[in-house]
């Protein structure tokens, strides 16, 4: 199994969720994060002076998937999240050794 971590633009969440649902991926965990990257931050004005905000709001999705679905899921996320602008985000792929469903104690792919 793999553990996918995707950083996306906040307003793409619904699109990604729907795209994943369409391919029967029905579980994920979302965190509000702040990203720093090429996109750079922005300037805010405060009483006539400008100051820099280095970090921009992003969402982080964490999705555990079975080995055989990894590619499909990554493609789905990236096409639903893409707007073509700098700052669209990244998808990280980590190895997932095991997973367990708390409620039932099921493990491995049965727990996803």
């Amino acid at each position, binding site marked *: 199994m793999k553990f996918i971590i995707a950083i996306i633009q906040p307003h793409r969440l619904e699109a990604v969720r729907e795209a994943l649902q369409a391919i029967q991926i029905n579980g994920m965990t979302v965190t509000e994060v702040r990203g720093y990257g090429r996109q750079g931050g922005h300037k*805010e*004005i*405060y*009483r*006539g*002076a*400008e*100051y820099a*905000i280095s970090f921009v709001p992003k969402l982080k999705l964490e999705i555990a998937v079975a080995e055989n679905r990894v590619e499909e899921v990554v493609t789905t996320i990236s096409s639903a999240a893409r707007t073509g602008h700098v700052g669209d985000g990244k998808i990280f792929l980590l190895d997932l050794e095991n997973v367990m469903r708390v409620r039932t104690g099921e493990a491995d792919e049965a727990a996803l």
Partner: protein
Amino acid sequence: MIEGADNAWLMMSSALVLLMTLPALGFFYAGLVQAKNVLSVFAQCVAMAGVASLIWFVAGYSLAFGGTAPFIGDLHELFLSALTRGAVHPGTHVSETAFIMFQMTFAVITPALIIGAYVERIRFAAVLMFSVLWLLIVYVPVVHWVWGGGWLETRGVLDFAGGLVVHVTAGVSALVVAWQLGPRRGFPEHVQPPHAPWMVVAGAAMLWVGWFGFNAGSALSSGGDAAMAMLATHLAAATATLVWIVIEWVKFGKPSLIGAVTGTIAGLATITPASGYVGPEGAVLLGLFGGSVCYVAVLVVKRGLKIDDSLDVLGVHGVGGALGTLLLPFAAVMGAGGLPSALHGGVDAQFLIQLLGVGIVSIWSAAASYGIVKLTDAVVGLRVSRDDEIQGLDFASHGESAYHGA
């Protein structure tokens, strides 16, 4: 004789002026600081309401309004222990009780304005000690000079609702405190943006409303003069708000909300000393000047003087109050609504008197505040430790945190 209507209006105005400190100024200032210092700002406002009121009760009122000696009042009204329910405030139709109450709310907000200069790094004990001394040494004498029959009043200085007494004293003293205290970590490059602009605007909105009590209440009566003061106050605020919006729009392409409401406060501070002497046109003029001059002043203090008067007490309040005091004679002669008859010896003569007032009050505020700050530093220490500043005053000084995971 007590006129019920005048008294009702003065009581209402007192409620409005207390609202300006609690919660309005609290919101305004707390929204501008970082999330880890929110509660400390509120705590300073609340403590100020407590401390200033008791000082006023014990001796402040007596020293400010007892007798008409040139420099300081007398001690006949210590502890207000001779105050009767039926007493009328001389020269008015309001009860002495209502007048004391009204003035007490001014004694609360004036030192509270200075909070903006020292947020995010001062010791709570220093706030209390500084404020007590400042009330007795700076505020109370100036009240006496200008409103209590003292020497500036005798000279003919005009200050309807506290341009000098409130805004110049607070603004100038704020600069001195900020200078002595030193800047916040990271000033000026890495200052953090206001953590909650919505809180700032909520505070500014309530300040705007409360200012009606401040200025129109200062008429000490509920007739056409009070209403004209209210109208003038509102128009100056509205104008200065738009001025600031326009400046930022032109300069940055986007008008910020915090800029707009800073303009509001600048307009309000500027109209304050003049609010009882001008008509609508004079008010709009003061709003135009208030908005634009304070805009420049804020930048000058931060970039020019490089002093971390963190929330711009001098740039907004001090400069606004002084400006309104100086422009008063010119604005008073505009339109049928002005009150040129209040001027002593015409526009130019009054201008010189006003200049004297601004000069004297500024010098006294600066010098006395300097001494008080030094003394406070020696006795309780001014500044929290570096660790406490990093951790934030909410926890370091009050053991609390403002937001527990929504």
